[in-house]
């Protein structure tokens, strides 16, 4: 298991080693507390999860125990691997506060009540060891209130660590230090949050809502209020304030359903209690009868009877319905018909300049949100970059507020604010005709500071971003589908940049070029990596389907062969090849991982050989490599069948590992492959791995296969027939399953024969081309392309 190792702080007078955090306690086992504990466990650390003892409970740890059990069933899973649950020790605050004596970090995530929190802090203070760190996950109570009346020793070791829900998946960690907080505490938390928990740590001032919620709540208020004022349907509003603004497609009403509509009044009240007198939020805020009524009747969103949307299952069919805001009744959703939605594809400016009601609505929401953000710097954060980081990582916006202002043009934006009788914030006046971000003469990214000069955007130590490299250097080679970059120290990086990073002939061409150029140009290693949402979703299914529809079997066979050849060339290249995936690595993308010497995976990597879902079998060496891995796996007894069966199950059910840790269970990743918690550190870690492997590198030996042949095929076929009889497999599942069984059993071989790698590849090739000739496979491919879902035919 990988373990977090503390990093080094570059400060005055050389490097200072930070104290290690080796044991953690989380107090409060609600959704947030449990989720935080899970992420600590995901990072490989032991963690105690404590909550109160409910009145009359006979199991005193029942709350924490139930929370852990619940997390094992939650989807998306808070735990990266079910076995991580064992690292979480349940307890209660009456009997077990003494465990904090062994903890380096104690995170409080109890109910938002100052008295309860302070009471807890006093009890913790009696137990915890010297120099341990205490943090609160509060989202609404200022740090100054939390430490009031607490001893100085506590205040020195205290900070706010504000996680976002769900803690595993939301990348933002807001860090708030008080005036008394020790520097070492801040540095330790920053380092721990970054490396161990994989978060983007943003330092905030001790102001209400910190950064992300302060701006996010105003954005929500304006999006709801203007939508109702302007008579928008919920679908229309979400279609405007969602995708066109670079905001997740849940938009506003979908988001409220997701987080819980009943949360709104609480948030609103606490903000109103804390915000300064002249805050724009006070002007915008209106108590909503609509929301109150919904909450009163139990329409609290996805967790309740429904929200602004609901899935109506009446009549056996799932129909997505939306709430008609005028009549307060549900009706089938209506696809919004606003020209501004399409116009928004050309950019934010085209969206807000569009004359239709959608464009006007977009302007009203954005003008308020962005000018509010601009007015809050430096009150809530030191600089604009911190604000943008917070909104991107905390609310999953594609661009932060200042990046959006740059897209609109700051001068244009100021002018339009003026025309709309909205105030122009001083920072916006200061930036004038310039932009909030620019690149300097050396192509380094800089932001506009509150001192009206530009400052470099500093990456944390050890962070290497391809985006930065791309800004400052020219690619070594490339085409429309992929590029290769020199990332220093003799390491080359191959970046795929097709849609969803699907693999096509263009990508293969560049892989071929990289293999050729690395030795010639004095490079030592190749990293396959990109900064898109997904590593690769595999073959370009559309191209493959079209080719199949025009019966271009020769072309298809050639493409399969080309993929096999290029993956083999990667495997046997005279230099190490390291894949550094994040997000989905499916089908051909997963096969790519299987052919690399090593993988350095982002913890959030979702790998799988999912070909059967579209009626195919892996044919770029996926069957071959996975067979080889399982046959080498020492836990298995001798004889070929156990490995064949294991691979048959894995591919035959299209298993997708839900994390890098889980991927090791299926051998999509090897036991010694590395896992990086923080996405931003992935490339640097991969590079370190690559350089280590490059010393005395020799290419792997060619495997030989001993496969069962027909006897194995018959056994697997019987299993498939059984599934069909019991209704667990469809007619075409049987066809695909049998094709897979034939490949994995080695075709017409037997145990005494030795099959070469190329012979297994030949079986894969034949199987996939034959499957593509079936109508049912083509129907699966078409269905996947058109709906994104597998067809069960």
């Amino acid at each position: 298991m990988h373990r977090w190792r503390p990093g080094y702080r570059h400060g005055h007078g050389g490097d200072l080693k930070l104290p290690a955090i080796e044991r953690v306690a989380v107090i409060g086992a609600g959704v947030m507390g449990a989720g935080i504990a899970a992420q600590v466990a995901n990072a490989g650390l032991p963690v105690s999860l404590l909550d109160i003892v409910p009145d009359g409970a006979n199991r005193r740890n029942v709350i924490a125990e139930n929370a852990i059990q619940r997390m094992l069933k939650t989807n998306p899973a808070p735990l990266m691997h079910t076995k991580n649950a064992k690292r979480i020790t349940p307890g209660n605050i009456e009997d077990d506060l003494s465990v904090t004596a062994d903890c380096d970090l104690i995170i409080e995530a109890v109910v938002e009540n100052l008295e309860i929190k302070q009471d807890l802090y006093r009890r913790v203070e009696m137990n915890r060891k010297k120099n341990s760190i205490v943090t609160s996950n509060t989202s609404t109570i200022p740090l100054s209130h939390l430490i009031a009346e607490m001893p100085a020793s506590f205040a020195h070791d205290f900070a706010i660590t504000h996680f976002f829900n769900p803690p595993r998946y939301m990348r933002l960690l807001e860090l708030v230090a008080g005036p008394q907080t020790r520097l070492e505490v801040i540095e330790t938390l920053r380092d721990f949050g970054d490396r161990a928990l994989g978060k983007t740590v943003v330092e905030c001032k001790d102001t209400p809502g910190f950064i992300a919620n302060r701006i996010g709540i105003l954005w929500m208020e304006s999006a709801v209020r203007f939508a109702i004022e302007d008579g928008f349907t919920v679908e229309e509003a979400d279609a405007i304030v969602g995708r066109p603004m670079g905001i997740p497609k849940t938009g506003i009403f979908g988001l409220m359903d997701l987080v819980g509509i009943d949360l709104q009044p609480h948030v609103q009240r606490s903000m109103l209690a804390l915000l300064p007198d002249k805050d724009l939020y006070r002007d915008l805020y209106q108590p909503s009868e609509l929301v109150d009524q919904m909450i009163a009747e139990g329409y609290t969103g996805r967790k309740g009877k429904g929200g602004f949307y609901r899935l109506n299952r009446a009549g056996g069919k799932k129909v997505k319905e939306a709430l008609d805001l005028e009549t307060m009744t549900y009706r089938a959703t209506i696809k919004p018909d606003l020209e501004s939605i399409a116009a928004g594809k050309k950019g934010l400016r085209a969206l807000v300049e569009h004359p239709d009601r959608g464009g006007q609505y977009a302007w009203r929401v954005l003008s308020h949100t962005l000018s509010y953000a601009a007015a809050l710097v430096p009150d809530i954060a030191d600089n604009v970059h911190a604000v943008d980081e917070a909104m991107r990582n905390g609310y999953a916006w594609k661009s932060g507020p200042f990046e959006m202002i740059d897209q609109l043009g700051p001068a244009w934006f100021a002018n339009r604010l003026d025309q709309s009788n909205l105030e122009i914030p001083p920072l916006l006046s200061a930036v004038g005709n310039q932009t909030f971000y620019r690149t300097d003469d050396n192509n380094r990214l800089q932001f506009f500071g509150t001192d009206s000069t530009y400052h470099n955007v500093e990456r944390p130590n050890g962070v290497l971003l391809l985006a930065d490299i791309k800004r400052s250097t020219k690619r070594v080679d490339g085409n429309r589908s992929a590029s290769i970059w020199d990332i220093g120290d003799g390491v080359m990086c191959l970046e795929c940049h097709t849609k969803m990073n699907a693999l096509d002939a263009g990508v293969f061409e560049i892989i071929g070029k990289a293999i050729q150029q690395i030795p010639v140009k004095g490079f030592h290693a190749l990293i396959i990596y990109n900064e898109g949402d997904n590593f690769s979703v595999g073959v370009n299914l559309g191209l493959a389907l079209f080719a199949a529809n025009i019966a271009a079997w020769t072309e298809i066979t050639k493409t399969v062969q080309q993929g096999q050849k290029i993956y083999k060339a990667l495997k046997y290249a005279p230099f190490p090849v390291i894949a550094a995936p994040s997000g989905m690595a499916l089908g051909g993308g997963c096969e790519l991982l299987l052919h690399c010497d090593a993988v350095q995976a982002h913890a959030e990597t979702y790998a799988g050989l999912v070909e059967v879902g579209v009626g195919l079998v892996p044919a770029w060496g996926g069957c071959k490599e996975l067979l080889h891995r399982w046959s080498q796996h020492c836990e298995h007894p001798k004889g070929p069948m156990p490995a064949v069966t294991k691979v048959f199950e894995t591919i035959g059910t299209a298993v997708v590992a839900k994390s890098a840790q889980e991927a090791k269970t299926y051998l999509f990743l090897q036991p010694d492959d590395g896992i990086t918690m923080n996405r931003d550190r992935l490339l640097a870690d991969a590079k370190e791995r690559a350089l280590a492997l490059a010393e005395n590198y020799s290419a792997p030996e060619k495997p030989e296969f001993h496969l069962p042949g027909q006897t194995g095929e018959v056994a697997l076929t019987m299993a498939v027939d059984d599934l069909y009889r019991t209704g667990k497999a469809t007619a075409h599942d049987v066809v695909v399953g049998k094709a897979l069984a034939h490949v994995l059993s080695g075709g017409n071989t037997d145990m005494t024969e030795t099959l070469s790698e190329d012979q297994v590849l030949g079986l894969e090739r034949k199987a996939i081309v034959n499957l593509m000739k079936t109508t049912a496979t083509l129907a699966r491919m078409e269905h996947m392309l058109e709906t994104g879902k597998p067809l069960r035919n």
Partner: protein
Amino acid sequence: MATYTAPLRDLRFVYEELFDAEEITALEAYRDATPDLVSAIYEEGAKLCQNELFPLNRSGDEEGCHFENGNVRTPEGFRSAYAAYVDGGWGGLNCAPEFGGQGMPHSVNIALEEMLCSANLSFSTYPGLTRGVYRALRVFGSEAIKQLYLPRLVSGKWSGTMCLTEPHCGTDLGLLRTRAEPTKQDNYRITGTKIFITAGEHDLTENIVHLVLARLPDSPKGIKGISLFLVPKFMPNEQGEPGVRNSVTCASIEHKMGIKASATCVMNLQEATGWLVGQPHRGMQAMFTMMNDARLGVGMQGLGIAEIAYQAAGAYAKERLQGRSITGTKQPDKPADPLIVHPDIRRILLTMRSFTEGARALTCWVARNLDFRDKAETEEARQAADDFVQVMTPIVKAFLTDYGFEVTNMGLQVHGGHGYIRETGVEQYVRDARITQIYEGANGIQALDLVGRKMPAHTGRYLRSFFHPVQRWIEEQSTNTELQPFVLSISKAFGRLQLATGHIAQAGLRNPDEGGAAASEYLRLFGLVALGYLWARMAQISIEKQGGDDNAFYAAKIVTARFFMERVLPQTGSLFAAIMSGSSTMMEFPDETF
């Protein structure tokens, strides 16, 4: 004296031998369509066309239509010919029995369509659009409309029109202005002017049913704001008889290059009463149902007119004595040899013949798929058939009319100077054929439909219905030594089609102008490959059957197939080269320099 002989033997060949008639009779709805019955139908149809309609073709062209006080009088003889057509029940040959039709398959009906078009293209336009109206009302009409109108349209007592075009909008129907105001009586008042309305007014039927595209008051702009209305010439009374005259009137008729006996009308609607057909603003959907039928119908016109041109040219080449054979006198007893001795004349005639017979096979293939689309038992089979019809519709329309026109022109060439004067009647075929390349969507539009809509639909699924059977057949026949010359030719041409398809799909995705630039040549390439495939299959059957009873027929088929493979199909090579050259020349040329 010109004659027309319906190609009954060849029609039977495609229905029974090239394709499996039992696949049609296996469908419950068509179990009566046995080869025997179909053969009898063909013969009866041939009689009508040969004896009643063909003799009126030339006279109708000479006389034209008469516009008198808002009425149109068709040429002499048309009324009685139409009566014979109605008496024979021909209008409802492939219509549903529940509305008085004969319930025959489309694949039988197209033979009649071809014969009608060969015998008298102008005449065929009167009943021609009734079929489209029938289909649109069947799919989109309310129950009341269906009960009232369909039996009368099926019997041919009433006829139909499609009113789309307006003075300022033809291809681009989004610009349409005719408006429809709702009334309190659940109907609409429709006002506007429609032009180029085929059979908009005439004296053949007691009533005319217009399907009119118009806009409702609250309609969205463009093509999404158009609705379809039914506007009868006479409002049916309670007995369903023509009653009060509706205010839809003919303002004038056009003077045209060809099909002069077909009335092409300017129609004025002045608050004419109409009923909505289908959903508001969804008129284009209903219209396309009708239009797709009509497009296949126009393709049949291309074939029909080519057939009569071929028959005339063949007869003339055999009887016209002029010059001597270049390899020595062939008929010393005559003052000169007939034209038929000359290789170039034979080249022209075989080019014509290999087209008509190939096209006949193609139209039957498409019509069979209409049958499967409507009546196949599984959804999967119905969809596969519909896919095929979708992709082949623009090809049938454009390829058959472009090529059909060329064939009429070739026929004229065989006649030399006598073809150019009116007396022989063959210049009429050239003039009549010309419109088929234009109406129901000009052929350039058909090519765009193929490349821009049909090709990318469902990631190429429509194409599968053609490409897979062809590829499979080539693979199956790869070891058939006797057939090798045919298999090699078609597999080469098919390979070009595959490459061109893949190329256009990708290039067009990046730059739609690439697709647009390649479209017309691609459509022709596709059409040639389709004919090539069918010729290879016809050769296969004929090789198996030669030496038997009908040896001359099969021997001719084999040689014609060889001719097509050797002399026509190689055009795919030059089309392929042109397609692959891309759009740069035409798109770089400055507008003002044209």
